[in-house]
């Protein structure tokens, strides 16, 4: 009688133990293999797309507000400069030409 009771219980636990081991193994393999197929890169790609979209939108707003982009004869206030209170914010040329050479100093 005892044996009849124990046997189905053992079978039940063995079956679930096997399932658990199989499941963990599959999860381990998937976890190990998928990144090599680009799962991680897909995540970075998504981050890049999101960031690029944000930057493009901000860039468009800057260009729209940049008096340099105004049609001839139309005056637009330098709103970008106003945002940052930097009359000389538009120092791209200086920057590329090492106007910010102090970048190379650390202390």
């Amino acid at each position: 009688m005892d044996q009849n009771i124990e046997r189905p219980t053992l079978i039940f636990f063995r079956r679930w133990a096997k399932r658990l081991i199989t499941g963990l193994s599959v999860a381990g393999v998937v976890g190990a293999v998928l990144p090599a197929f680009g799962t991680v890169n897909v995540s970075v790609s998504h981050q890049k797309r999101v960031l690029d979209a944000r930057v493009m939108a901000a860039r468009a707003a800057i260009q729209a507000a940049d008096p340099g982009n105004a049609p001839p004869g139309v005056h637009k206030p330098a709103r970008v400069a106003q945002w940052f209170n930097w009359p000389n914010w538009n120092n791209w040329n200086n920057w590329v030409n090492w106007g910010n050479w102090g970048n190379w100093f650390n202390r």
Partner: protein
Amino acid sequence: MALQSIIRWFGGRLIDATSGNAPAFNRQDFEPAVSTRLLILQPTPFCNINCDYCYLPDRALAVRMDIATLRTAACRLRDDNLLPPELTVVWHAGEPLAMPRIWYEEAFDVLDEVLGSLCRVTHSIQTNATLIDDSWCRLFLRYQVRIGVSIDGTADLHDAHRRTRHGKGTHASVMQGMAVLRSHGISFHAIAVVTPATFAAVEEFADFFEANPVSELGCNVEEIEGGHSESSLNGHEASHGEFLERLLERSRRPGSQLRVRELGNALNLIARPLPTVAWRGRRWPFNSQVLPFQMVNVAHDGRWCTFSPELLGQRGSSPDQFVFGNVHDAGYLQGAQSGAFRRAWDEIIRGTDMCEQECAHFPYCGGGAPVNKFYENSSLASSETMYCRSVLKRPFNVVLAQLERDRQNVLAAA
């Protein structure tokens, strides 16, 4: 630290064994053509003060570059046809003003003699300002030298780290030097090393630079480099972000004198795309630290390197791991065929590739800073560092978020 050294040593041996795969440098591979826009000269490693976060290993060594070495360094640049239309010469490492004034007069004249007819040369000096007097100012004005002063803000913040060898604070001397510069009408930028103490005192820090305006304020974090193996920023990066947000807010106030370099750079990066550089069919956003010969760094004795300037004078797996030659022996381009150069170039390319694959900010950066990769990740062939999070990503994100908040208003106004 010991473990890092062991990893670095084994890394160096492994690279030695595989250096046959490192790419040979060929200037024809680059578009636009390779040229040197920044010549960084280290006239002496000696510094008259002893900041506790300094990474320079030989700052107690009172040796000097001789004029013959300087002349050779300039001639090599000319002979290798690396000169751009405009060349900035930066006098750096140790304290540049620890050299005699008369030495600079001769040095500036020699550079003008060798390079003056081929390109426009401008001189820049980053100084702790403790030695500045009227005579120095006359020299700066005569040669139109651009000046940067290293000061951390208020006396409390500054004197906590920037001290003499006897442990005395240097803030009063720096303020005196700045006053002398101003009395001669010489404008200058400032560089401050910011720490958690600065983050906690952001209002006082901003007030200081409002009261003592400079053309631009660079806020450097304490980097892990050379013998300086820990940074106070560890565990405080969120506070650094809040600090930048507050500085942005302060700089936007009407009439504010604050011009924060990191925020300005971020705005520039958002406003326009970086120029790109092509190399063997690949194209990278321009980053002067990962491209050969954009910067050439020459030590007092003629040893030189390129890429990150801070690599010169550092000790990797060997004392000369990042020395690619000596101007007394051969030209720069010949040095680019050395094993040391090829190993570094190979690792830097791989590091740049990793940045491209792993980082959303790559189009706005182009591959980070090799020297920080080396010291933080134990390899040039690596990607993200605390440095790039702090100097590029965080300011970029802060400025972008501000633009997004403002965007609707601006578009409505336009």
